[in-house]
């Protein structure tokens, strides 16, 4: 499509978020493109790699300790998207810092590191370690704290549902992260997402990412039981696009906090909808799983205008 007349932001140029300049506004979403080391050898006509033109890879969320994740099945495809319950399977932040991040730096992958924890102060610990390990890195641009992780201390509720906890987590991370962008990834499963965004902004986040997955469930009619062993999963893909747009709009209009839009983006048109509402960047998740060149494709179409 040709770009609409209202379109002014120069999405091809680098842009600034907090203390960092990012090479582009089309990112991949956490959990949907692993650690940014996969697919470098993939080919398709028109692209050298799936990373071409991508502004940042938000890496799979890592936690203080490694996690083996949830039992299978972890994914359930629906006509309008998918629900997942991966259970934050990850190598742990120490292995990530030792083995993954240096490779990303070597390969020149613009990186935002996603972190989750069960106690606010752990965000500080992980950010401090990150800062120590990667202080001189050129391609590590920032941290996204994933606030949708079950908070063990508070009885299984999402961390991110309470503005005070959000502020504590952001504050802990910010205090250890002097010169990288700090993003707080918000859950949509709340009454007032703008309140969370405001809390994150006041506590020092440079931006918020919205949205994480929407709580969803599917039933296996053969058994009458939920498809996923933990009943609920995170709904993503085309069906959450209108929800993500509404949440992003709410945050933009009620707070001054920059927003990175995520949710249901599969095409240039979808991405432009977020930019039209004022998002500073967007992330491609489920569509990136379907097609390793999805984000690169959107970035290419944007720059081609």
């Amino acid at each position: 499509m040709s770009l609409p007349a209202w379109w002014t932001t120069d999405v091809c140029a680098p842009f600034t978020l907090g203390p960092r300049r990012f090479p582009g506004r089309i990112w991949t979403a956490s959990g949907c493109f692993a650690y940014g080391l996969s697919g470098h050898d993939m080919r398709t006509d028109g692209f050298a790699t799936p990373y071409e033109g991508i502004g940042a890879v938000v890496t799979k969320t890592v936690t203080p300790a490694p996690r083996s994740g949830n039992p299978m099945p972890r994914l359930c495809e629906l006509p309008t998207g998918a629900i997942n319950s991966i259970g934050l399977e990850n190598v742990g932040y120490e292995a990530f810092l030792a083995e993954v991040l240096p490779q990303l730096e070597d390969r020149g992958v613009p990186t935002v590191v996603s972190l989750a924890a069960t106690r606010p102060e752990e965000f500080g610990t992980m950010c401090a370690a990150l800062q120590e390990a990667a202080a001189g890195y050129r391609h590590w641009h920032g941290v996204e704290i994933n606030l949708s992780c079950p908070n063990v201390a508070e009885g299984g509720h999402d961390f991110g549902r309470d503005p005070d906890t959000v502020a504590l987590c952001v504050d802990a991370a910010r205090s250890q992260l002097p010169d990288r962008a700090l993003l707080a990834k918000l859950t949509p499963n709340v009454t007032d997402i703008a309140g969370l965004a405001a809390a994150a902004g006041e506590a020092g986040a440079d931006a918020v990412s919205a949205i994480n997955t929407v709580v969803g469930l599917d039933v296996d009619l053969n058994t009458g039981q939920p498809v996923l062993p933990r009943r609920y999963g995170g709904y993503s893909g085309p069906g959450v696009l209108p929800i993500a747009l509404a949440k992003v709009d709410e945050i933009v209009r009620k707070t001054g906090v920059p927003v990175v839009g995520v949710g249901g983006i599969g095409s240039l048109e979808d991405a432009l909808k977020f930019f039209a509402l004022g998002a500073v960047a967007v992330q491609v998740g489920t569509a990136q799983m379907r097609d390793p060149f999805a984000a690169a494709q959107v970035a290419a179409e944007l720059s081609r205008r």
Partner: protein
Amino acid sequence: MKRINPLKALGAVRENRPVSSGLLRLDLELEGSCSAEAGFAPGQFAMVNLPGSQAFVFGRPLSILDWQGRRVSFLYRVVGRGTAELARLDQGSLVDVLGPLGGAFPRLADDQAAVLIGGGVGLPPVAAWLARHGRPGDRGYFGGRDGADVPWSQLEGAWQVSVDRHESIPAGREAFHGLVTDMVASDPELADAGRRVVLTCGPIPMLRAAARLAQQRGWDCYVSLEEHMGCGYGVCKGCVIPVLDEKVPTGEGFRNATCCEEGPVFRAEQVLWERYGALPTL
């Protein structure tokens, strides 16, 4: 074996036709320049998707029956929404292909012979192996539901056939009545003490029976496993298979290996069978 870089390309349907009562064969001609020099190793699969279709949020993993240059072939059974859409494709329709993905069945040492066991839609990877690497001592066994379900035209050469129901066997064909693994167990040709390796793909009960048989005989056994997949290329962790591993940091004695990237081919003794098998059996 040199790893073949996976590619993404559109493929035009050359043929999409039944080869038995339950199985269809899909032949594609890939488009674009990057697919000119493609290839695969038997055991690898591809994610097959319909461009722009809402039937598929994710691709459907299908084992590669053959892939030479621009020509790719699959063998599939209609089980749900996605495969039903595939079955409706006419000549010339476009399909999205991402592959080859995953690991392959091993090549064997000179003193080893293969026991290839394919159950139903598990045929493609073992048939591909036989076509590519087969030597005179290798033997293929295919298990179908009945004579009509067996894709006889795809089973030329070294194949022996078993059927669950001894019905509809075409004239001039022979089939063992019973489980394919029972056919293998009772094959006198395998009774000698030669070094053999089982390479198998099919329903889980069949794989377990094959693995047990191999263990009893002291043969190596490689199984090609299926799991629900999201991405198919290792980025979502949606397709894990529990494999035994004493050294995992979580201390649980096993770890989750991606079926799409570490697999789909695993050594049978590596698989923690008790924890595997969230999929309904086909």
